[in-house]
């Protein structure tokens, strides 16, 4: 099914918003790393990741998503295999096995898992006939998403494991989740929350405790949240100016080029800059929903919905963390945070969206 793809039909608006956000990220990465010889090359590397991501997106857009959906079982098996393999051949960094080194490049395999789980869930849910999902369907979805999630959580990387939940939730919600099931799931989640405490590792508990009581340990985990809030708050309405943020330049913001890049951005660009960035993210989210609506079929719509759920969750958790609404996790800000795996993975997902988009007028 090799067709002539008309790139003219791509979602240029979406791409424009995405590239603008990438640009904001690049500028802030430059600002956070300019005075550190060790990190000086980061802005160029991030630019390279974006370039590779764009290329990957165009390739992905060419491929008809239906053929990907047909390969879903194999993609799923391969993903599980990689997640298991990482325990044996993965490289340990900061006490967690999340990375596989291929040709000198470290790649975070869980990023790939996000992409594949979107495909797998879209495939499974689009095959369900009927207006509503049965309890059996829900159980199958839970197992499908749960297996990789458990494997990722065991790395340990609870944050990334949790990103699979909103993907499943959004797609299931659109595919016809019954309201009573939704209610039951919500109640079950609330009841399981205390039990979850015992599953957490000490550092994860620490983060949660300092999230609930930030004053308890101002020099420890709560320190990161506090410093982030100081950076954001001291930025004021207009910001301190690029390269002028003391919290950023003197290193008070933790991992300021990656997870906490939005704190550095808020300090230097102020509330005005935040309105611009959040506005762009909102346009991105609404544009994705627009693409859900205009998708040619149910499976395409569910693919885009998965991407929407994932992106929305990342945004909420990362930005919430920066202003102290959420506990500290390693979830990066999509498109702005420095990081090869996350950037390429995000563009791969946008490639899925483009692939659906390019086929909206295709009459089969």
């Amino acid at each position, binding site marked *: 099914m090799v067709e002539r793809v008309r790139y003219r039909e791509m979602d240029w608006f979406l791409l424009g918003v995405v590239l603008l956000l990438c640009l904001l990220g690049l500028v802030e990465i430059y600002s956070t790393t300019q005075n550190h010889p060790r990190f000086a090359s980061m802005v160029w590397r991030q630019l390279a990741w974006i370039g590779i991501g764009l290329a990957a997106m165009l390739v992905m857009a060419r491929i008809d998503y239906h053929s990907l959906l047909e390969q879903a079982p194999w993609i799923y098996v391969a993903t599980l295999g990689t997640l298991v393999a990482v325990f044996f051949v993965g490289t340990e960094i900061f006490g967690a096995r999340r990375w596989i080194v291929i040709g000198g490049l470290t790649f975070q395999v869980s990023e790939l898992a996000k992409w594949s789980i979107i495909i797998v869930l879209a495939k499974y849910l689009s095959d369900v006939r009927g207006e509503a999902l049965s309890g059996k369907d829900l159980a199958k979805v839970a197992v499908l998403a749960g297996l990789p999630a458990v494997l990722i959580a065991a790395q340990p990387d609870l944050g990334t494991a949790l990103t699979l939940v909103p993907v499943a939730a959004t797609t299931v919600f659109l595919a016809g989740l019954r309201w009573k099931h939704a209610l039951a799931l919500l109640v079950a989640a609330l009841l399981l929350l205390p039990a979850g405490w015992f599953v957490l590792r000490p550092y994860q508990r620490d983060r949660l405790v300092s999230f609930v009581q930030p004053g308890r340990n101002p020099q420890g985990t709560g320190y990161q949240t506090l410093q982030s809030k100081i950076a954001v708050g001291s930025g004021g309405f207009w910001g301190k100016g690029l390269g002028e943020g*003391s919290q950023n330049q*003197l290193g*008070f913001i933790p991992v300021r080029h990656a997870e906490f890049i939005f704190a550095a951005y808020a300090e230097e660009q102020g*509330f005005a800059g*935040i309105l611009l960035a*959040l506005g762009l993210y909102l346009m991105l989210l609404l544009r994705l929903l627009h693409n859900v609506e205009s998708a*040619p079929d149910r499976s395409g719509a569910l693919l885009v919905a998965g991407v929407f759920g994932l992106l*929305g969750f990342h945004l909420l958790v990362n930005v919430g963390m920066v202003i102290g609404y959420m506990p500290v996790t390693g979830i990066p800000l999509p498109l702005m945070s420095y990081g090869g795996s996350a950037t390429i993975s995000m563009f791969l997902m946008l490639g899925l969206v483009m692939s659906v988009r390019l086929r909206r007028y295709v009459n089969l």
Partner: protein
Amino acid sequence: MHLLAEPKLPALRLGLLRYAAVAAVVLLATGFWQLQVVRSDHYAQLAERNRIRTLPIMAPRGVIFDRHGRVLVDHYPSFSVLLVREHVQEIQDSLPVIARGLSLDPTWLEQHLEKFADAAPYQPIVLKEEASLADIAFVEAHRTDLPELELMLVYRRRYPPVGLGAHLFGYVGEATKDEIERLGVPSGTIVGKMGLERHYDQILGGQDGERRVIVDSRGKEVSKLDQKKPVPGQPVRLTIDYDLQVAAEHALEGRQGALVALDPRTGDILAFVSRPAFDPNLFALRISPEDWQALTEDPAKPLLNRVIQAQLAPGSVFKVIVAAAALEEGLFRDGSFRVYCPGWANHYGRVFRCWRPEGHGTVELHRAVVESCDVFFYQVGRWLGIERIARYAKLFGLGTRTGLELPGEKAGLVPTPEWKLRAMKEGWIESETISVAIGQGPVLVTPLQLAWAVGGIASGGLFAQPRLLLDPPEPTAHRRVPLKAETVDAITQALWGVVNEEGTGKLARLPEIDVAGKTGTAQLVGYDTLERVGRETARRFRDNAWFIALAPHRNPEIVVAVLLEHGEHGAAAAPLAREVIRAYYEKKPPAPKTEVAQASAAGAPRGD
């Protein structure tokens, strides 16, 4: 494909997701609004405090000189190692390295830091004082990996060795909570705690400065911001003469008591000794609890400043006051007042003994003072009555603080019937007046008061305010008590006799020098009790010995008061005063002729 067969995605749910996306972004934007607009000032302040580290710059305290410009107390620079916790997240990890590098006991270090667990994090903790060159090298070498360590230049007070002038100078230390409030100084400031250091803290202390630097998140100094220069403390010049001070210290070596020398013409304190003493240098560093306990629990009370805080019965020295009072009141006007002393007397139905059991025979005023006849003064005291004795004693400065510039001066006590009624809810007993007449009973004086009172009478009623600063900030007030010339003549002649005739103070005699004086022996227990417990009784029951020396005897230039606790008899204190007077004359410029001329002009007979 089965497009038509597929159920469409529900539009309602898509709409809900749209609203959810808008709501989420609005919620996040509200959070930013809260931080960046509503509470922006608060966080801007926190950011400033983050990046700016304030380090105190200690002002050196003023040097203390003697009256001739010789250094008595100065300071030397040394380094303290500080721990700045503000930016340090995990101090525990570096503690072993710090302990090893600064050769500190790791357990002590942990306990030390625990004490500051609740203190404000921007307050630096002193880890080590008097840092050695190796310590300084350690801190400098670890600027990057241990940025929490800071060096601070401090000035340590250096006092003379062996406690010379300890009670006079006092000591300094870190301000307590009370002092921080009272003086309005920042915590960690060094303030005077005792003696001159405390009284003239405002002058000596200066104003600490501070240095502000920009630091990064690890506490490493990135650049300098500004600095407020410290204002060094002002130097002060004391009235103390180092040579006399040394002579006085030597005289009291190994004894318990006090010695004060003053120039009654100006009020200048020339020597000031209280023994036993302590070493103020112990306080210059943090004093150890053991040292502190030893000082406070020593029964000899080394922290007591006996010159102004020992309140004791003046004994026979008080006869000078009683004699002056009787002279002023006209008892000896016709020169016929005589008393026969058989060694005892009966007053108000009680037997009062004279210190000389065999008695003095018939005595008049001059001999009564020279030989310190108790029976004579019982009679004089009875004639004067307690009210008149008290009035003159107060006139001569007893019973009130002299106002010397030292904290904690005691007022002593001049008893009156009114006082007894108020303090003891009892009426005055007539026989008590008899005891008071020879300086026993409830009358209490400090060595400084006694020197001032006797010196003032011998100076013809001029009571120059005692002072310690040669150039006082405000001119000192002198008090003049109108005394008849006959009174001053009779008293000074008698005091000259005490030393130069066969008197009780002949041990103070110095060839070629006109010395006068008066002994005093204050009983700690009554004569009767003493006989009961036996003469060789415990040291603490032994009498206090007083000697007041003046030179020359008329319009004296120097008055020395010596107190020897448990010194048995005033005669034992006399040689100590003599040594100080000898030192005074040894260093006087060799112009004896002018001096004699001056002395004659003042109408003073020479002692040779």
